[in-house]
């Protein structure tokens, strides 16, 4: 699963990342993320530690793909990639072709999108930032061009809310109004809007976004489980002796393989293959159930956050 962050330079993508790692790194609420690469783990830990001191990370110079696993009570449940890229690329008249191609490819392969909207800009009236908003809409359009295997979640994150005056109106959101109204009517795309602040004491909001994206991506893994389960069941059926003669031969083969093992000879019988496939099917079933439970728990959490007005879900 690929979760892609889209936003203009300075919108707060990298700080969001630091906040996310700091919060889930504390293994809050039984959920966490485990970094698959040691170097990334060090980098993220440093960013999270700096955040504690009130220092924000500098923006991303090159596209970064963080390889994570979503963990439940310490157990890895599903792998996912979190992609951060250089925000400046979107407004450049002459973007580096290779960077741009990488970005366009990342959009096409995204299974969830996190769109960053700078709160300081959103509160301004007028059309000054419409170009930036339209480019983000174009990025969303691009990600929807690909047919997804699952429902497609888009999180809209209004950043820097700690420096936005209380009660300020986000005028810039009107540019997204037609998109929001379409999402409300869509059965294949969903969206969540969240106001976010990342400070040394306040860094839990990225978890809402992670939960929403993972919730949206769970069906992908559940489908994979179903496919793997069906393949294992088919394999078991293909190897399982069913007729009387087959069972007789199977028994004899089992006996011979027992004798072969005495002389250290490996012999995988039809029954062995059947049992291995059955075990694999059982494992997939377990994983499916874990994913199902996780999906339901996340759904409950999202509902309660929505009820408490912490997030707006379309």
């Amino acid at each position, binding site marked *: 699963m690929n979760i892609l962050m889209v936003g203009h330079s300075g919108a707060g993508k990298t700080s969001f990342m630091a906040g996310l790692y700091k919060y889930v790194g504390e293994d809050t609420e039984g959920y966490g993320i485990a970094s698959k690469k040691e170097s990334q783990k060090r980098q993220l830990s440093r960013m999270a530690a700096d955040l504690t001191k009130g220092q924000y990370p500098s923006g991303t110079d090159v596209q970064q793909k963080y390889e994570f696993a979503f963990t439940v009570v310490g157990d890895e449940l599903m792998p996912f990639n979190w992609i951060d890229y250089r925000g400046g690329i979107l407004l450049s008249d002459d973007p580096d072709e290779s960077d741009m191609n990488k970005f366009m490819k990342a959009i096409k392969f995204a299974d969830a999108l996190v769109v960053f909207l700078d709160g300081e800009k959103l509160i301004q009236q007028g059309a000054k930032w419409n170009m930036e908003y339209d480019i983000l809409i174009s990025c969303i359009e691009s990600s929807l*061009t690909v047919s997804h295997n699952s429902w497609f979640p888009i999180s809209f994150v209004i950043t820097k809310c700690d420096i936005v005056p209380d009660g300020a109106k986000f005028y810039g959101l009107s540019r997204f109004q037609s998109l929001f109204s*379409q999402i409300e009517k869509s059965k294949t795309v969903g969206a969540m809007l969240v106001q976010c602040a990342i400070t040394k004491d306040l860094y839990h909001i990225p978890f809402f976004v992670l939960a929403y994206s993972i919730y949206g991506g769970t069906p992908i893994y559940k489908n994979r489980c179903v496919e793997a389960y069906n393949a294992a069941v088919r394999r078991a059926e293909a190897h399982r002796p069913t007729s009387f003669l087959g069972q007789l031969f199977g028994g004899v083969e089992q006996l011979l393989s027992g004798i072969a093992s005495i002389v250290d000879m490996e012999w995988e019988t039809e029954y062995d293959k059947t049992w291995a496939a059955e075990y694999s099917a059982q494992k997939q079933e377990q994983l499916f159930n874990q994913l199902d439970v996780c999906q339901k728990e996340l759904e409950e959490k999202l509902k309660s956050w929505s009820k408490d007005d912490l997030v707006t879900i379309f």
Partner: protein
Amino acid sequence: MADKISFYGLSGSGKSCYIFAMSQALSQGVPFPDGELLTVITPDPRQMLKLYKAYEKMVNGQWPAGNVESVNYNFNIRKALDLLMSLEITDFRGGLLDSVDEDDMDEQEKLFNSYKGSSVLLFFVGADKVKAAMNGDSAARFNIQYLNTLYEQYLGLSSNARNTPVMVVLSKSDMLTTNEVSNAKNFLKDQMAAMFGRGTRITAGLTAVTLGSNLTNEGGELEGILDITPTAGNLNIPILFSLFYVMGKKIEDTVGSIQSNESALSSSKRDLTKELSRNSFLRFFVNNETSIRSRINSQSTAISRDKELLIKLSSTMNGIKQYLLRGADIYINGIKLQA
């Protein structure tokens, strides 16, 4: 694969400005009677940047310069986020159409060849040109007749050409009074007999578009009032006209797919009856019931999916029809459709 719409017009006919304005206006969505919005948005952020900058130039009182080279734009047309059509619009650079310069020959040939792969052809004619032609300017009249000649050439290229709908877009219509627009449309209809004549067996549309009111161009300076909103100035009409015919094709395909799936389903049902009537001893050894039932399920799913699509397409086409009948004159075989 994207459907191709080709824009043709002489230099200064307003093709590029139409694209810049349309992309802005329609990205915000055209409302439909069912409450859903139809949006036209480029899925390429680089193109969005280019299109927005050109639009911003207009807002800031400057007309964008004409294209020095031909440009392809990609757009997705969605309704309630369901993709209805991917569109490729080719905006050939101004002046290429009637160029006699030898250096332009290769590119010009590309332009003429582009006719063939196009789902819809749009011919842009500026209101200033039409007005001049109506007032006896022979060069302007020649220009308009030249478009008709090109279209006649196109008809000779393929036997299928008559199935491709064509629309003539009277651009910059704010330069004319309501009465003059009506006269200009009649004039264009007469001049472009290859499209609008009786017995042509062609579906042709005629519309007048504008980006605002009292717009003028004095040395690149834009004066007047820009009005770039989804339904203002008929900005949506050329795109909806194109969409209407592409969706018509899609409906035909969907009906075909339903028919073929229904016949396959009947055959599967017969197979199942046959299978169930077989000797149970034989079925113990070779049993096809599960595979036939799964075939029946997938065929039934495909049929209901297509039927749902058909309902959606028909409802969208009805919505488009209302817009088209209000904003354009549609001629089939030279006879105007009445609202």
